[in-house]
Every structure is written in structure tokens, then in C-alpha cells.
């Protein structure tokens, strides 16, 4: 009989899952291989250090292997793996920093949950086309990583899950143990802050050296070319 509801696990995955559960431990790597990058990025979104992230992934995957019988196939396998990786990374960060990592909690502050946006987007020139071919790959990578580092961890992890990993809002909420409403609020802030951090480089020029970007229409007093909306 066909099982009701959506199918979260592909037939190929289901077959591999069954084999691992039947004792073919060696099949486990084959099962997780398609998600290697996703789980690495998940670990990186919390710890931001390649060596630590790699260790976290290894420990998380051992944990996943042990916990495999408890995977109910009611979510995507990738989401489940990311969840375990996130938990492992958070435990590690908690241990290392010896203080609570706030990000697992619900809205950290009353202001976050309220409708107010205590944030004002900086204004740069319009740029509808990304001249990405004009940018050095490495330069872009460094700029991206710097921008990500500038985000508060609770915003960064949401941005990484939704916009880097392309998980859905629902999957992001599940992976991070947050409410969907919280994910949406954090995502807004993260995206606006990422734009603030990256738009000058793309609009101006990273290639001209540091801090050489143009703020064509900085927020504040309008510059001469500012056209007030009619």
C-alpha cells in the first residue's frame, strides 16, 4: 500500500537507509555524500573555522549513523543531517566559549519580535546588473565571507540556511529549531545587512582597493542628484 502524504525520502535513499539499518554500515557514506557540502556549510555557519567545521561534521555524521533508526522519514534526509550538524556545532561553540549561545532561543529581544525595524538601509547607487564577471573570484569570496562574518550569529545562520543552502523557510526553521516567524524576521535583517555590506563593493569597485567604494546616495541629507519621489 502506498504511504499517505508527501514523500520526503527518495527511493534510492530509502533503499540505502534500509541497507544501513540492516547492518551495512559502509553504505552510510554513500547516503550522506550528496549532502557533504550542505552539512559542511551548516557547520561553517556556526563555527566559521574550516578545521573545526570539518571535525564537527565528522562527529555529527557518527552521531547520525548511531541515530539512524530514529530517522522517521517524515522530513528530508538532508534536513535531518543539517539539524544534527547544527546541534553538534552549537554544542561545540557552547563548550568552547563557556557561555550560552543565544541563537537557539526564541526572539532574543522584545524588539526583534515587535514590528519595529530598528534598521535603516544604507543607500547606494542603483545596480541592477551584477558585474560579477568583472570581479576577481577570490575577491568576491573574501568579500562574501567578510560580510557573513559581520552578521550577528543568529542572523548569519538563518541567511546561510535560506540563501546559501537554499532551504525553504520551513526547512530553515526545522534545521535551526526556530519558529517560522522568527526565521522571517531574522532573514529580513540578515538580507538587508548583507546588502549593506556587499553593495558598495559591487557598485563601486573592490578592485580599486579597500574602502574606495562610492556612496552615491548615502542615507541622511540627500545629495544633489537625489530626486524626491513625486
Amino acid at each position, binding site marked *: 500500500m502506498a504511504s499517505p502524504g508527501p514523500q520526503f525520502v527518495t527511493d534510492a535513499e530509502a533503499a540505502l537507509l534500509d541497507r544501513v539499518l540492516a547492518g551495512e*554500515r*559502509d553504505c*552510510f*557514506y554513500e547516503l550522506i*555524500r550528496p549532502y*557533504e*557540502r550542505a552539512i*559542511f*556549510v551548516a557547520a*561553517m555557519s556556526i563555527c566559521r573555522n*574550516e578545521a573545526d567545521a*570539518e571535525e564537527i*561534521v*565528522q562527529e555529527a*555524521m*557518527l552521531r547520525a*549513523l*548511531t541515530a539512524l533508526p530514529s530517522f522517521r522519514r517524515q522530513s528530508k534526509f538532508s534536513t535531518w543531517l543539517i539539524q544534527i550538524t547544527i546541534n553538534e556545532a552549537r554544542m561545540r561553540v557552547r563548550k568552547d566559549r563557556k557561555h550560552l549561545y543565544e541563537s537557539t532561543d526564541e526572539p532574543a529581544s522584545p524588539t526583534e519580535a515587535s*514590528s519595529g*525595524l530598528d*534598521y535603516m*538601509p544604507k*543607500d*547606494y*547607487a*542603483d*545596480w*541592477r546588473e*551584477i558585474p*560579477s564577471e568583472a570581479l576577481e573570484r577570490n575577491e*568576491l*569570496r573574501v568579500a*562574501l*565571507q567578510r560580510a*557573513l562574518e559581520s552578521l550577528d550569529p543568529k542572523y548569519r545562520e538563518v*541567511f546561510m540556511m535560506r*540563501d*546559501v543552502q*537554499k532551504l525553504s*523557510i520551513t526547512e530553515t526553521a526545522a534545521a535551526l529549531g526556530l519558529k517560522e516567524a522568527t526565521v*522571517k524576521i531574522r*532573514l*529580513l535583517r540578515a*538580507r*538587508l545587512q*548583507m*546588502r549593506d555590506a*556587499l*553593495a558598495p563593493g*559591487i557598485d563601486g569597485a573592490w578592485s580599486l582597493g579597500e574602502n574606495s567604494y562610492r556612496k552615491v*546616495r548615502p542615507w541622511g541629507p540627500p545629495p544633489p542628484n537625489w*530626486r524626491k*519621489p*513625486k
Partner: protein
Amino acid sequence: MTLIEISCEEVWMELSNYIEGDVTPELRARMEAHFRKCDHCTAIYDGTRNIIQLVGDFQAFDIPKGFSERLQARLKKPE
């Protein structure tokens, strides 16, 4: 039908949901009317959308060399 005007701040609050396609048709129409006459918000919208596209397309995080081999080896080790 006349659309009720929307402020810049209201547009920013909903920008992320707008990009997600997660706004009501009415709000969408109000925001689009706002974009037509507000260069500032249009620039913010374009910029934000571009960033999302950029990070989505760009392989910002490559797996370190030897990562897969080390992971495989670790999984084989008895616990």
C-alpha cells in the same frame, strides 16, 4: 481600485517576504506602486535581490581538500 500608499519603512519591513513571494496580492500591488515612484526603495530591492542571487550562485564555501576521504575514514573507525 485606489491603492493605499505605503511608506518606505513599511516597504523595508516586508522586503524579504516580498522577495519570497510571501505577501498578499494587495500588499504586493502597494509595494509595486511604491517602487514605481521611489528610486531609493527600488535600489534597496534590486540590491537585496542581487545579493541573494549572488550568494546562491556562488560557491562561497568549497569543501576543504581531502574532506571526503577523511570523513569516510572517520566513519569506518570503530567508535
